[in-house]
Protein backbone atom coordinates (compact mmCIF):
# COMPACT_ATOMS: atom_id res chain seq x y z
CA UNK A 1 0.00 0.00 0.00
CA UNK A 2 2.78 2.41 0.91
CA UNK A 3 4.49 1.47 -2.34
CA UNK A 4 1.29 2.21 -4.24
CA UNK A 5 0.98 5.63 -2.60
CA UNK A 6 4.64 6.37 -3.33
CA UNK A 7 4.09 5.47 -6.98
CA UNK A 8 0.95 7.59 -7.12
CA UNK A 9 2.87 10.48 -5.60
CA UNK A 10 5.58 10.18 -8.25
CA UNK A 11 3.04 9.68 -11.02
CA UNK A 12 1.09 12.87 -10.54
CA UNK A 13 4.29 14.93 -10.45
CA UNK A 14 5.47 13.34 -13.68
CA UNK A 15 2.03 13.96 -15.19
CA UNK A 16 2.00 17.62 -14.19
CA UNK A 17 5.50 18.51 -15.40
CA UNK A 18 5.02 16.20 -18.38
CA UNK A 19 1.93 18.14 -19.40
CA UNK A 20 3.72 21.49 -19.18
CA UNK A 21 6.63 20.37 -21.40
CA UNK A 22 5.21 17.44 -23.34
CA UNK A 23 1.98 19.10 -24.38
CA UNK A 24 3.28 22.68 -24.18
CA UNK A 25 6.13 22.17 -26.63
CA UNK A 26 4.03 20.97 -29.60
CA UNK A 27 1.47 23.67 -28.81
CA UNK A 28 4.14 26.38 -29.02
CA UNK A 29 5.29 24.81 -32.27
CA UNK A 30 1.69 24.78 -33.53
CA UNK A 31 1.40 28.51 -32.82
CA UNK A 32 4.62 28.93 -34.79
CA UNK A 33 3.19 27.05 -37.77
CA UNK A 34 0.03 29.10 -37.61
CA UNK A 35 1.90 32.41 -37.55
CA UNK A 36 4.13 31.22 -40.36
CA UNK A 37 1.11 30.30 -42.47
CA UNK A 38 -0.46 33.68 -41.71
CA UNK A 39 2.82 35.40 -42.56
CA UNK A 40 3.25 33.44 -45.78
CA UNK A 41 -0.20 34.26 -47.14
CA UNK A 42 -1.27 32.66 -50.42
CA UNK A 43 -2.45 29.10 -50.09
CA UNK A 44 -0.86 28.44 -46.70
CA UNK A 45 -4.10 29.11 -44.83
CA UNK A 46 -7.53 27.80 -45.72
CA UNK A 47 -9.49 30.63 -47.33
CA UNK A 48 -12.60 31.45 -49.39
CA UNK A 49 -12.24 30.97 -53.16
CA UNK A 50 -11.33 34.16 -55.02
CA UNK A 51 -9.64 35.82 -52.04
CA UNK A 52 -5.85 36.30 -52.15
CA UNK A 53 -4.11 36.35 -48.76
CA UNK A 54 -1.23 38.82 -48.55
CA UNK A 55 2.06 37.78 -46.94
CA UNK A 56 2.80 39.49 -43.61
CA UNK A 57 6.30 39.97 -42.22
CA UNK A 58 5.12 40.16 -38.59
CA UNK A 59 3.66 36.67 -38.86
CA UNK A 60 6.96 35.24 -40.01
CA UNK A 61 8.89 37.07 -37.28
CA UNK A 62 6.58 35.75 -34.56
CA UNK A 63 6.88 32.28 -36.08
CA UNK A 64 10.69 32.33 -36.02
CA UNK A 65 10.63 33.55 -32.43
CA UNK A 66 8.37 30.67 -31.42
CA UNK A 67 10.50 28.14 -33.34
CA UNK A 68 13.61 29.49 -31.64
CA UNK A 69 11.91 28.95 -28.28
CA UNK A 70 11.05 25.35 -29.22
CA UNK A 71 14.62 24.68 -30.38
CA UNK A 72 15.90 26.15 -27.12
CA UNK A 73 13.63 23.83 -25.12
CA UNK A 74 14.74 20.78 -27.12
CA UNK A 75 18.39 21.78 -26.69
CA UNK A 76 17.91 22.15 -22.95
CA UNK A 77 16.51 18.62 -23.03
CA UNK A 78 19.72 17.48 -24.75
CA UNK A 79 21.74 19.46 -22.21
CA UNK A 80 19.87 17.78 -19.40
CA UNK A 81 20.66 14.31 -20.75
CA UNK A 82 24.34 15.22 -21.22
CA UNK A 83 24.71 16.71 -17.74
CA UNK A 84 23.01 13.71 -16.15
CA UNK A 85 25.08 11.31 -18.21
CA UNK A 86 28.27 12.97 -17.00
CA UNK A 87 27.22 12.21 -13.46
CA UNK A 88 26.06 15.60 -12.27
CA UNK A 89 22.71 16.34 -10.71
CA UNK A 90 20.42 19.12 -11.79
CA UNK A 91 18.24 20.80 -9.20
CA UNK A 92 15.88 23.66 -9.92
CA UNK A 93 16.09 26.88 -8.00
CA UNK A 94 12.75 28.25 -9.08
CA UNK A 95 12.96 27.69 -12.81
CA UNK A 96 16.70 28.24 -13.06
CA UNK A 97 18.69 24.98 -13.22
CA UNK A 98 21.57 24.53 -10.79
CA UNK A 99 24.17 21.91 -11.75
CA UNK A 100 26.15 20.21 -9.01
CA UNK A 101 28.56 17.27 -9.19
CA UNK A 102 27.20 14.19 -7.40
Amino acid at each position, binding site marked *: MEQFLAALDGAWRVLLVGLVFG*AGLPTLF*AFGIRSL*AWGAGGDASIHEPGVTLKPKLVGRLIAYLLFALVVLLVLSGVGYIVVHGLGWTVTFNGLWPVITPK
Partner: protein
Amino acid sequence: MINVTPEFILLALVVLTALAFDFTNGFHDTANAMATSIATKALSPKAAVTLSAVLNLVGAFLSVEVALTVTNAVIRIQNPDGTPKPELMADGGHGLLLILMAGLAGAIIWNLLTWLWGLPSSSSHALFGGLIGATVASMGWAGVKWVGDGYKLDGVVGKVILPALFSPAIAIVVAMVGTWLVFRVTAGVARRYQESGFRWGQIGTASLVSLAHGTNDAQKTMGVITLALIAAGQWSVTNDIPVWVKVACALAIASGTYIGGWRIIRTMGKGLVEISPPQGMAAESSSAAVILVSSQLGFPLSTTHVCTGSIIGSGLGRTGAKVRWGVAGRMGMAWLITLPSAGLVSAVMWYIGHVIGGTTGAIVVFGIMCAAAVFMRWRSRRDPIGHHNVNDDWDGTADAAKVTVSGGVK
Protein backbone atom coordinates in the same frame (compact mmCIF):
# COMPACT_ATOMS: atom_id res chain seq x y z
CA MET B 1 48.57 -13.60 -21.65
CA ILE B 2 45.08 -14.72 -20.74
CA ASN B 3 44.84 -18.20 -19.36
CA VAL B 4 41.95 -20.07 -21.00
CA THR B 5 40.44 -21.88 -18.03
CA PRO B 6 36.86 -23.22 -17.79
CA GLU B 7 36.02 -20.16 -15.64
CA PHE B 8 37.29 -17.91 -18.39
CA ILE B 9 35.14 -19.66 -21.01
CA LEU B 10 32.07 -19.23 -18.77
CA LEU B 11 32.84 -15.53 -18.30
CA ALA B 12 33.32 -15.05 -22.04
CA LEU B 13 29.95 -16.70 -22.72
CA VAL B 14 28.23 -14.41 -20.20
CA VAL B 15 29.81 -11.32 -21.76
CA LEU B 16 28.80 -12.47 -25.27
CA THR B 17 25.24 -13.16 -24.12
CA ALA B 18 25.04 -9.75 -22.43
CA LEU B 19 26.18 -8.03 -25.63
CA ALA B 20 23.64 -10.06 -27.61
CA PHE B 21 20.95 -8.87 -25.19
CA ASP B 22 22.11 -5.28 -25.68
CA PHE B 23 21.79 -5.81 -29.43
CA THR B 24 18.19 -7.11 -29.13
CA ASN B 25 17.50 -4.21 -26.77
CA GLY B 26 18.58 -1.85 -29.55
CA PHE B 27 16.47 -3.27 -32.35
CA HIS B 28 13.48 -3.87 -30.11
CA ASP B 29 13.43 -0.20 -29.18
CA THR B 30 14.16 1.49 -32.52
CA ALA B 31 10.40 1.78 -32.86
CA ASN B 32 10.06 3.83 -29.67
CA ALA B 33 11.83 6.81 -31.14
CA MET B 34 11.42 6.36 -34.86
CA ALA B 35 8.11 4.55 -35.62
CA THR B 36 6.17 7.80 -35.87
CA SER B 37 8.75 9.58 -38.04
CA ILE B 38 8.85 6.60 -40.41
CA ALA B 39 5.05 6.34 -40.56
CA THR B 40 4.58 10.03 -41.42
CA LYS B 41 7.51 9.94 -43.87
CA ALA B 42 9.27 12.73 -41.97
CA LEU B 43 12.35 10.55 -42.47
CA SER B 44 12.97 7.69 -44.86
CA PRO B 45 13.16 4.34 -43.01
CA LYS B 46 16.93 4.09 -43.63
CA ALA B 47 17.61 7.66 -42.51
CA ALA B 48 15.51 7.17 -39.38
CA VAL B 49 17.35 4.08 -38.17
CA THR B 50 20.73 5.66 -38.98
CA LEU B 51 19.93 8.81 -37.01
CA SER B 52 18.60 6.78 -34.11
CA ALA B 53 21.65 4.49 -34.11
CA VAL B 54 24.08 7.41 -34.04
CA LEU B 55 22.20 9.07 -31.18
CA ASN B 56 22.08 5.80 -29.24
CA LEU B 57 25.83 5.46 -29.70
CA VAL B 58 26.45 9.01 -28.49
CA GLY B 59 24.03 8.47 -25.61
CA ALA B 60 25.76 5.27 -24.51
CA PHE B 61 29.13 7.04 -24.37
CA LEU B 62 27.65 9.96 -22.47
CA SER B 63 26.69 7.89 -19.48
CA VAL B 64 29.67 7.73 -17.15
CA GLU B 65 27.44 6.93 -14.22
CA VAL B 66 28.04 3.39 -13.11
CA ALA B 67 24.91 1.22 -13.18
CA LEU B 68 26.59 -1.60 -11.29
CA THR B 69 23.78 -1.91 -8.78
CA VAL B 70 21.12 -2.32 -11.49
CA THR B 71 20.07 -5.76 -10.22
CA ASN B 72 19.73 -4.59 -6.60
CA ALA B 73 16.25 -3.24 -7.26
CA VAL B 74 14.77 -6.68 -7.79
CA ILE B 75 17.11 -9.46 -6.67
CA ARG B 76 19.53 -10.15 -3.85
CA ILE B 77 22.73 -11.25 -5.57
CA GLN B 78 24.78 -8.15 -4.77
CA ASN B 79 25.80 -6.20 -1.68
CA PRO B 80 24.67 -2.57 -1.49
CA ASP B 81 28.08 -1.41 -2.80
CA GLY B 82 27.75 -3.54 -5.93
CA THR B 83 30.08 -6.42 -5.08
CA PRO B 84 28.55 -9.89 -5.46
CA LYS B 85 27.27 -11.77 -2.40
CA PRO B 86 30.09 -13.97 -1.04
CA GLU B 87 28.01 -17.19 -1.13
CA LEU B 88 27.74 -16.86 -4.94
CA MET B 89 31.47 -16.36 -5.34
CA ALA B 90 32.60 -19.92 -4.69
CA ASP B 91 34.14 -21.78 -7.62
CA GLY B 92 35.38 -18.67 -9.43
CA GLY B 93 31.96 -17.01 -9.21
CA HIS B 94 30.28 -19.90 -11.01
CA GLY B 95 26.97 -19.50 -9.13
CA LEU B 96 26.58 -15.85 -10.03
CA LEU B 97 27.76 -16.28 -13.62
CA LEU B 98 25.21 -19.03 -14.22
CA ILE B 99 22.40 -16.81 -12.85
CA LEU B 100 23.46 -13.99 -15.18
CA MET B 101 23.85 -16.36 -18.13
CA ALA B 102 20.40 -17.96 -17.67
CA GLY B 103 18.74 -14.60 -16.95
CA LEU B 104 20.17 -12.98 -20.07
CA ALA B 105 19.36 -15.99 -22.25
CA GLY B 106 15.72 -15.95 -21.14
CA ALA B 107 15.50 -12.19 -21.75
CA ILE B 108 16.94 -12.58 -25.26
CA ILE B 109 14.56 -15.42 -26.19
CA TRP B 110 11.56 -13.41 -25.00
CA ASN B 111 12.74 -10.29 -26.84
CA LEU B 112 13.09 -12.28 -30.07
CA LEU B 113 9.71 -13.94 -29.66
CA THR B 114 7.90 -10.62 -29.15
CA TRP B 115 9.83 -9.23 -32.11
CA LEU B 116 8.56 -12.14 -34.22
CA TRP B 117 5.02 -11.24 -33.12
CA GLY B 118 5.72 -7.57 -33.84
CA LEU B 119 4.90 -6.57 -30.28
CA PRO B 120 6.77 -3.72 -28.53
CA SER B 121 7.41 -5.30 -25.13
CA SER B 122 9.76 -3.75 -22.61
CA SER B 123 13.40 -4.90 -22.79
CA SER B 124 14.00 -3.89 -19.19
CA HIS B 125 11.05 -6.03 -18.07
CA ALA B 126 12.53 -8.93 -20.03
CA LEU B 127 15.94 -8.41 -18.37
CA PHE B 128 14.49 -8.08 -14.87
CA GLY B 129 12.14 -11.02 -15.49
CA GLY B 130 15.00 -13.19 -16.69
CA LEU B 131 17.22 -12.32 -13.73
CA ILE B 132 14.34 -12.91 -11.30
CA GLY B 133 13.57 -16.32 -12.83
CA ALA B 134 17.19 -17.46 -12.70
CA THR B 135 17.56 -16.16 -9.13
CA VAL B 136 14.42 -17.97 -7.92
CA ALA B 137 15.67 -21.18 -9.53
CA SER B 138 19.04 -20.83 -7.87
CA MET B 139 18.36 -19.25 -4.46
CA GLY B 140 14.62 -19.80 -3.92
CA TRP B 141 11.87 -17.18 -3.57
CA ALA B 142 13.78 -15.35 -0.83
CA GLY B 143 16.40 -14.32 -3.39
CA VAL B 144 13.95 -11.86 -4.88
CA LYS B 145 13.10 -8.46 -3.41
CA TRP B 146 9.36 -8.36 -4.12
CA VAL B 147 8.20 -5.22 -2.30
CA GLY B 148 10.30 -2.27 -1.12
CA ASP B 149 10.18 -0.93 2.43
CA GLY B 150 8.01 2.05 3.27
CA TYR B 151 7.60 4.90 0.83
CA LYS B 152 10.81 4.38 -1.12
CA LEU B 153 9.90 2.78 -4.45
CA ASP B 154 11.83 -0.48 -4.55
CA GLY B 155 11.52 -4.18 -5.30
CA VAL B 156 9.62 -5.83 -8.13
CA VAL B 157 6.37 -4.07 -7.22
CA GLY B 158 7.80 -0.59 -6.73
CA LYS B 159 10.42 -0.53 -9.48
CA VAL B 160 8.76 -2.62 -12.17
CA ILE B 161 5.04 -3.34 -11.79
CA LEU B 162 3.64 -0.05 -10.49
CA PRO B 163 5.59 2.16 -12.93
CA ALA B 164 4.43 -0.12 -15.76
CA LEU B 165 0.83 0.57 -14.78
CA PHE B 166 1.24 4.32 -14.36
CA SER B 167 3.62 5.32 -17.13
CA PRO B 168 1.49 4.42 -20.19
CA ALA B 169 -1.47 6.19 -18.59
CA ILE B 170 0.58 9.34 -18.00
CA ALA B 171 1.89 9.27 -21.57
CA ILE B 172 -1.62 8.78 -22.99
CA VAL B 173 -2.91 11.86 -21.16
CA VAL B 174 0.06 14.07 -22.10
CA ALA B 175 -0.02 13.08 -25.78
CA MET B 176 -3.80 13.38 -25.94
CA VAL B 177 -3.78 16.91 -24.56
CA GLY B 178 -0.87 17.87 -26.83
CA THR B 179 -2.52 16.47 -29.95
CA TRP B 180 -5.84 18.11 -29.17
CA LEU B 181 -4.18 21.51 -28.64
CA VAL B 182 -2.07 21.20 -31.79
CA PHE B 183 -5.09 20.52 -33.98
CA ARG B 184 -7.05 23.36 -32.33
CA VAL B 185 -4.23 25.85 -32.87
CA THR B 186 -3.53 24.93 -36.49
CA ALA B 187 -7.19 24.55 -37.49
CA GLY B 188 -7.06 27.29 -40.13
CA VAL B 189 -3.76 26.22 -41.69
CA ALA B 190 -3.75 24.36 -45.00
CA ARG B 191 -3.06 20.68 -44.47
CA ARG B 192 0.00 20.37 -46.67
CA TYR B 193 1.59 23.44 -45.08
CA GLN B 194 0.82 22.19 -41.59
CA GLU B 195 2.23 18.72 -42.22
CA SER B 196 5.53 19.82 -43.73
CA GLY B 197 6.14 22.06 -40.73
CA PHE B 198 5.40 19.38 -38.19
CA ARG B 199 7.71 16.88 -39.88
CA TRP B 200 10.64 19.03 -38.74
CA GLY B 201 9.36 19.26 -35.20
CA GLN B 202 8.92 15.52 -35.17
CA ILE B 203 12.53 14.81 -36.12
CA GLY B 204 13.81 17.01 -33.29
CA THR B 205 11.70 15.41 -30.58
CA ALA B 206 12.31 11.86 -31.87
CA SER B 207 16.06 12.52 -31.66
CA LEU B 208 15.65 13.48 -28.03
CA VAL B 209 13.96 10.13 -27.31
CA SER B 210 16.80 8.23 -29.06
CA LEU B 211 19.48 10.01 -27.07
CA ALA B 212 17.72 9.40 -23.77
CA HIS B 213 17.36 5.73 -24.71
CA GLY B 214 21.09 5.37 -25.36
CA THR B 215 22.05 6.80 -21.99
CA ASN B 216 19.52 4.70 -20.05
CA ASP B 217 19.53 1.28 -21.64
CA ALA B 218 23.17 0.70 -22.60
CA GLN B 219 24.05 1.40 -18.98
CA LYS B 220 22.11 -1.63 -17.74
CA THR B 221 24.13 -4.06 -19.85
CA MET B 222 27.38 -2.33 -18.87
CA GLY B 223 26.40 -2.90 -15.23
CA VAL B 224 25.64 -6.58 -15.80
CA ILE B 225 28.92 -7.24 -17.65
CA THR B 226 30.96 -5.45 -14.98
CA LEU B 227 29.22 -7.52 -12.31
CA ALA B 228 30.20 -10.69 -14.19
CA LEU B 229 33.82 -9.48 -14.42
CA ILE B 230 33.91 -8.83 -10.68
CA ALA B 231 32.42 -12.27 -9.96
CA ALA B 232 35.10 -13.92 -12.10
CA GLY B 233 37.83 -11.89 -10.40
CA GLN B 234 38.79 -10.00 -13.57
CA TRP B 235 37.81 -6.59 -12.20
CA SER B 236 37.74 -5.21 -8.69
CA VAL B 237 36.62 -1.58 -8.71
CA THR B 238 32.95 -0.86 -8.02
CA ASN B 239 32.92 2.79 -9.06
CA ASP B 240 34.25 2.41 -12.56
CA ILE B 241 33.71 0.16 -15.55
CA PRO B 242 36.35 -1.03 -18.05
CA VAL B 243 36.58 1.07 -21.21
CA TRP B 244 36.19 -1.93 -23.51
CA VAL B 245 32.88 -2.80 -21.81
CA LYS B 246 31.59 0.66 -22.52
CA VAL B 247 32.73 0.61 -26.15
CA ALA B 248 31.34 -2.89 -26.75
CA CYS B 249 27.94 -2.06 -25.21
CA ALA B 250 27.65 1.21 -27.10
CA LEU B 251 28.41 -0.54 -30.39
CA ALA B 252 26.03 -3.42 -29.62
CA ILE B 253 23.04 -1.21 -28.84
CA ALA B 254 23.75 1.12 -31.78
CA SER B 255 24.13 -1.70 -34.32
CA GLY B 256 20.94 -3.26 -32.99
CA THR B 257 19.16 0.04 -33.47
CA TYR B 258 20.56 0.32 -36.99
CA ILE B 259 19.32 -3.16 -37.96
CA GLY B 260 15.91 -1.91 -36.85
CA GLY B 261 13.11 -4.06 -35.50
CA TRP B 262 10.94 -3.45 -38.57
CA ARG B 263 8.14 -5.72 -37.38
CA ILE B 264 7.76 -3.64 -34.23
CA ILE B 265 8.21 -0.34 -36.07
CA ARG B 266 5.33 -1.36 -38.33
CA THR B 267 3.01 -2.19 -35.41
CA MET B 268 3.78 1.04 -33.58
CA GLY B 269 3.78 3.33 -36.61
CA LYS B 270 0.94 1.87 -38.64
CA GLY B 271 -0.89 -0.65 -36.46
CA LEU B 272 -2.06 1.40 -33.47
CA VAL B 273 -3.10 4.70 -35.01
CA GLU B 274 -2.84 6.27 -38.47
CA ILE B 275 -0.34 8.95 -37.50
CA SER B 276 -0.11 12.37 -39.14
CA PRO B 277 2.91 14.65 -38.58
CA PRO B 278 1.20 16.85 -35.94
CA GLN B 279 0.21 13.71 -34.00
CA GLY B 280 3.74 12.37 -34.42
CA MET B 281 5.27 15.49 -32.95
CA ALA B 282 2.80 15.54 -30.07
CA ALA B 283 3.53 11.86 -29.34
CA GLU B 284 7.33 12.24 -29.42
CA SER B 285 7.26 15.42 -27.28
CA SER B 286 5.11 13.60 -24.77
CA SER B 287 7.50 10.63 -24.69
CA ALA B 288 10.60 12.81 -24.37
CA ALA B 289 9.05 14.94 -21.62
CA VAL B 290 7.71 12.00 -19.61
CA ILE B 291 11.02 10.08 -19.87
CA LEU B 292 13.18 13.05 -18.86
CA VAL B 293 10.87 14.25 -16.08
CA SER B 294 10.63 10.80 -14.51
CA SER B 295 14.37 10.30 -14.62
CA GLN B 296 14.72 13.64 -12.82
CA LEU B 297 12.16 12.66 -10.19
CA GLY B 298 13.60 9.17 -9.77
CA PHE B 299 10.44 7.48 -11.06
CA PRO B 300 11.60 4.38 -12.91
CA LEU B 301 9.83 3.54 -16.14
CA SER B 302 10.13 1.70 -19.40
CA THR B 303 10.70 3.70 -22.60
CA THR B 304 8.54 1.23 -24.50
CA HIS B 305 5.51 1.71 -22.28
CA VAL B 306 5.79 5.49 -22.46
CA CYS B 307 6.19 5.63 -26.24
CA THR B 308 3.29 3.25 -26.89
CA GLY B 309 1.10 5.24 -24.51
CA SER B 310 2.02 8.45 -26.32
CA ILE B 311 1.03 7.03 -29.71
CA ILE B 312 -2.33 5.83 -28.37
CA GLY B 313 -2.84 9.27 -26.80
CA SER B 314 -2.15 10.98 -30.12
CA GLY B 315 -4.95 8.88 -31.63
CA LEU B 316 -7.36 9.75 -28.83
CA GLY B 317 -6.62 13.47 -29.01
CA ARG B 318 -7.52 13.86 -32.67
CA THR B 319 -11.20 14.05 -33.54
CA GLY B 320 -12.09 11.45 -36.13
CA ALA B 321 -8.95 9.37 -35.66
CA LYS B 322 -9.39 5.84 -34.41
CA VAL B 323 -7.20 3.70 -32.21
CA ARG B 324 -7.05 -0.01 -33.09
CA TRP B 325 -7.83 -1.33 -29.63
CA GLY B 326 -7.37 -4.91 -30.75
CA VAL B 327 -3.69 -4.20 -31.47
CA ALA B 328 -3.35 -2.20 -28.23
CA GLY B 329 -4.92 -5.08 -26.30
CA ARG B 330 -2.43 -7.56 -27.72
CA MET B 331 0.39 -5.25 -26.62
CA GLY B 332 -1.12 -4.93 -23.15
CA MET B 333 -1.19 -8.72 -22.86
CA ALA B 334 2.46 -8.91 -23.96
CA TRP B 335 3.41 -6.36 -21.29
CA LEU B 336 1.63 -8.34 -18.58
CA ILE B 337 3.31 -11.62 -19.44
CA THR B 338 6.80 -10.30 -20.32
CA LEU B 339 8.19 -10.48 -16.79
CA PRO B 340 6.82 -13.93 -15.85
CA SER B 341 7.55 -15.42 -19.29
CA ALA B 342 11.16 -14.26 -19.42
CA GLY B 343 11.44 -15.47 -15.82
CA LEU B 344 10.10 -18.91 -16.68
CA VAL B 345 12.43 -19.34 -19.67
CA SER B 346 15.40 -18.23 -17.55
CA ALA B 347 14.49 -20.59 -14.70
CA VAL B 348 14.37 -23.52 -17.13
CA MET B 349 17.71 -22.38 -18.59
CA TRP B 350 19.22 -22.25 -15.11
CA TYR B 351 18.07 -25.80 -14.29
CA ILE B 352 19.49 -27.09 -17.56
CA GLY B 353 22.82 -25.36 -16.89
CA HIS B 354 22.84 -26.52 -13.27
CA VAL B 355 21.95 -30.18 -13.92
CA ILE B 356 24.56 -30.58 -16.64
CA GLY B 357 26.93 -28.57 -14.48
CA GLY B 358 30.22 -26.81 -14.99
CA THR B 359 31.23 -25.02 -18.13
CA THR B 360 29.47 -27.63 -20.27
CA GLY B 361 26.14 -26.58 -18.72
CA ALA B 362 26.73 -22.95 -19.67
CA ILE B 363 27.76 -23.96 -23.19
CA VAL B 364 24.52 -25.95 -23.58
CA VAL B 365 22.46 -22.96 -22.37
CA PHE B 366 24.30 -20.74 -24.84
CA GLY B 367 23.65 -23.29 -27.60
CA ILE B 368 19.92 -23.49 -26.85
CA MET B 369 19.71 -19.70 -26.96
CA CYS B 370 21.50 -19.57 -30.34
CA ALA B 371 19.25 -22.32 -31.72
CA ALA B 372 16.14 -20.43 -30.58
CA ALA B 373 17.45 -17.24 -32.20
CA VAL B 374 18.18 -18.97 -35.50
CA PHE B 375 14.76 -20.64 -35.47
CA MET B 376 12.92 -17.35 -34.90
CA ARG B 377 14.98 -15.62 -37.55
CA TRP B 378 14.09 -18.41 -39.98
CA ARG B 379 10.41 -18.26 -38.96
CA SER B 380 10.36 -14.49 -39.60
CA ARG B 381 11.26 -15.14 -43.24
CA ARG B 382 7.75 -16.40 -43.90
CA ASP B 383 6.36 -12.87 -43.76
CA PRO B 384 9.39 -10.64 -43.97
CA ILE B 385 9.01 -7.00 -42.93
CA GLY B 386 11.74 -4.52 -43.75
CA HIS B 387 12.27 -0.94 -44.79
CA HIS B 388 10.60 -1.71 -48.12
CA ASN B 389 7.15 -2.57 -46.76
CA VAL B 390 7.14 -1.11 -43.26
CA ASN B 391 4.66 1.61 -44.27
CA ASP B 392 2.15 -0.50 -46.22
CA ASP B 393 -1.47 0.00 -45.24
CA TRP B 394 -2.31 -1.92 -42.09
CA ASP B 395 -5.57 -3.55 -43.16
CA GLY B 396 -5.37 -3.00 -46.86
CA THR B 397 -7.66 0.00 -46.93
CA ALA B 398 -6.59 3.59 -47.44
CA ASP B 399 -6.79 5.83 -44.39
CA ALA B 400 -10.17 7.54 -44.25
CA ALA B 401 -8.84 10.45 -42.22
CA LYS B 402 -6.54 11.43 -45.08
CA VAL B 403 -9.47 12.38 -47.29
CA THR B 404 -9.98 15.88 -45.96
CA VAL B 405 -8.97 19.38 -47.04
CA SER B 406 -5.58 19.11 -48.67
CA GLY B 407 -5.25 22.35 -50.67
CA GLY B 408 -5.46 25.90 -49.51
CA VAL B 409 -8.97 26.48 -50.75
CA LYS B 410 -12.07 25.59 -48.73
